[in-house]
């Protein structure tokens, strides 16, 4: 079994709904975004390209955060999900430095969004322990109830597909099969050369954009 998330970059519209679906689900404090989207512009006018890269914990097979933690507070479940134990964590931050993707968050003085305890925020604060290292858990608490991760069910573009990569009948395996045939795309991982072997994988966007601009003619 190898649970993982597939992000189909062809479908991503860069809306950040996943970013806030995650926040709504997990009750993260200010500046903590377990899932987020990198919005990139490359090139010079008029040859400018836009791309979006949603990122989140990669739940690496060989996770640098697990090896870095001095308290053995990070562990990998049998289904592959990497969890930071919120009770055991001492807040040393070694994992934050160790993660090559910048996907772990730590702030001993967590900040929130509302000055007083607004009712919704009061509830949100009960989801995670204050002042501990935290990151995406592939919504393990939802998976344990046969529900898909919040970001997956919330993506209005259908760009996030979750499941067992090892099971040919899973949604994610099916999607890969269809895309291989229809659009000839194979999945890739971020920073694959580091040997972390992420469970979060990507399919590249299809468009080969060319621009009709004549430079900066006025």
């Amino acid at each position: 079994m190898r649970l993982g998330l597939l992000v189909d970059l062809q479908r991503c519209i860069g809306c950040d709904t996943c970013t806030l679906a995650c926040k709504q689900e997990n009750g993260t404090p200010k500046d903590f975004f377990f899932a987020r989207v990198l919005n990139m512009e490359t090139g010079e006018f008029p040859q400018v390209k836009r791309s979006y890269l949603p990122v989140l914990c990669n739940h690496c097979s060989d996770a640098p955060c697990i090896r870095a933690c001095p308290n053995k507070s990070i562990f990998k479940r049998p289904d592959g999900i990497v969890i930071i134990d919120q009770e055991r964590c001492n807040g040393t931050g070694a994992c934050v430095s160790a993660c090559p993707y910048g996907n772990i968050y730590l702030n001993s003085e967590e900040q929130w969004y509302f000055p007083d305890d607004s009712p919704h925020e009061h509830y949100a604060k009960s989801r995670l322990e204050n002042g501990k290292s935290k990151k995406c858990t592939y919504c393990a608490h939802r998976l344990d109830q046969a529900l898909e991760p919040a970001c997956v069910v919330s993506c209005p573009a259908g760009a996030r597909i979750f499941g067992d990569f090892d099971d040919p009948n899973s949604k994610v395996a099916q999607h890969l099969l269809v895309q291989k045939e229809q659009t000839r795309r194979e999945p890739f991982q971020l920073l694959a050369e580091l040997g972390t072997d992420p469970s979060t994988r990507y399919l590249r966007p299809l468009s080969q954009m060319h621009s009709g601009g004549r430079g900066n003619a006025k």
Partner: protein
Amino acid sequence: MVTTRRVPGRFPDTAPVPEVRYVRTVDSPNCTGACGWIATVKEDIIIDLKPAADYPDPEYNPRGCLRGMASTSLIYHPDRIQTPLIRVGQRGEGLWRESSWDEAMDLLAEKFKDISAKYGPESIVFFNQVIGTGNVQKGAQVRLASLFGASYATGYDYNGDISMGYTETVGIDSLESESAAWAEAKTLILWGANVLQTRMPDAKFVLKVQENGGKVIVIDPRASQSVKAADLWLPLIPGTDGILALGVARIILANGWIDSSFIRSFTDLPLLVRMDTGERLRASDLHLGKPDEFVAVLPTSLARGELDKTLRDAAQPFRFVPVSPESLDIEGVEQLALDGIYNVEIEGKPVTVRPAMALLREHLQQEQYSLNNVSQKTGLTPDSILELARSYAQNRPAQIIIGMGVNHRFHGDLVIRSILLLGALTGGFGKPGQSVDIYSGQHHVRFDISPWWYPDGKRPNVVSMHYVIMPEKSPTMNPKIHLPKDGFHALFFSHANIFTTSHVNEWRKIRDKLEFIVAVDYMKTPSTELADLVLPAPTFWEKHELVVTGPHPYIQIQQPVIPPRYQARSELWMMKELAKRLNPEWEAYFEMSAEEVIDYLLANGGPVSAGITLEALKKGPVRLNLPSPDVPLVENIEQRLPLPPRAYPHKEGAQREFLKTGRMEFYKEEESFRTSGEALPTYKEAYSHLSPEELRFPLTFMTPHAKWRVHSTHVNNPWLQNLNRKPVVEIHPQDAQTRQIKDGDLVELFNLYGSFQLWARVTQTIRSGALSVDHGWWSRYLAKGDYNNVLLPERVKTLQETYFLPAVYAPGQLWKDPRVEIRKVK
């Protein structure tokens, strides 16, 4: 569904699951999404939101976006208006006294009676935004205004959402396919439409075109969010969309990529125009028929393929046939002449007449529409313009989506007529993935709401908001519009940040003349701060409502997820309280509960809503009785029915006066069009209506919608502020360098009318000569000044006053027309 488990630690969470309930509702802040959500409620607090994803057509699932997802931060925001507030200091000082509802409504009624007695009830103007989002509650406000005889200012045209180019061509203000249909296109063109940012729940269908092997073309001066999806990006010079469209029309004609059958059946292009008056020839002029019928030429010899040649040989037989606006079935329609010069006699005098198509062909032969000139004017390569033309005309089905980037201009109607021409020439309408659509606000009235809004057939005094705020009266205002003789003395606005989002300078002056200003809102806004009385409304999550939209064919209800917070009461309740104080007889008009009003609206809505009930809607979205797929003009084309499609809530036939032929009109015969030189779609420089002083400012200024807000809603949402911290102006490196501006610098934008300060974002994504600032910031987030005070003062295009039909034929807006300069702030 439930989000009550703690994020996992070493041991599983075995705590008992708390009691929660789930409520399915729809969000409706005027983004046209009308997305279904499931809220999880624990002890009357919303603890989670997830997309409902229960639309019967699975292609739509899920709908939703980051703003809907962040709604809890507005519902529980500290700036919610908690009680009715009565102003105590000066307007804008921020000094308020909390009052009871009784005292507030007594004051409101007393003021209204007083002002009405002095100046007449029409001196009080009601304004609520985009009524498609609130058929029940906002409808109740219209109902009250109708009974009272107050004025009602339409938001749709004032917002610039009205697409006059459509009204002038097809007799209705927009055409909207359901978004799932876009995916059927092989060529999809986003023309001044930033769909990936402005129609987030629908944007997936744009990307689907590529997944299916099709091609996406984006026409936009900036590398907007949507450029991610582009196979071809045309970064044209702002304001040159019209000449691009006409250049493409010329290429299409030159290559013969036309659908003559469509042109003959569904457009006015075969109809004869008199060369002496410029008006269309009438059947009665030739004693062939009635004065409301027109004339076309039918060659009587059935020579193959020679039908479009100029008929110089007098021996070539032909005859004139009458063309009725009530039927598209003219005899010999497939052979009607699209060219030629003919001579007739009218009352003894010789008159030359020609089919409109012939005039159009000649018009497009002008040098300005040549490929070379169009390339120069637009800043696009000739190859890319050819590629646009060829892809659209040949790689079919082909879909054009037009956006407000094109429409929000003084001459936006000309541009849109030019784009619609491309559709008409190639027969590009009436199929999924093959239409020319435009999406603006959530204004669409999709079924007949008049029994609720217009009790006993009474209507308010409907005016375009333009005329409420214009500095000087328009001498050509349509005579159907009635302005109160002593001016406006009171304003009642609901769910509108009316003093912030537009025409800041004009409103400042108008406010001085208004004795009484009432605001209805759930949030403290810069506009509520300028009122005399503020009434707390519920959010969309705290009331019953009936919601429809253009981009999808479903009707949905809002249900209260939690009861209204604080002292908020529904708009329907407010109107009942006001009604009984103004006139005890009027209380009976507001006796139904919101749920009963929903059933009443549905039952009386005509064929589109027939058979749909509140009970059914409680289970989820229900499809309105519309064609499937819901593609505009599909019935007109398949069943050969004359245009226009009916614009609710207006009566059947109300649109005939401005679409006299019953067909798509590319030749507008009215004097107002002819004297402007706009009888045919023509190109006018976007800034040609500006004065020399206004033109001194060299930079064009765009204000696209941002993904972080819906207009200015959510600007104060801390979750969204955490992702988008401050207002920036996009500026090309060349323009920045000549002004010594570096990325992140504090800068000032200014022109004749005002200035404001914000921060520079030096970027390659915009062309030199243009600036862009996202729409919808409140002034408190700027470094200094009011965001919209550089807009051009309100002005209307005379020919857009030729007729008046509220929210269908009325002047548009010119948000994208200001010119500015920018400097670094020392």
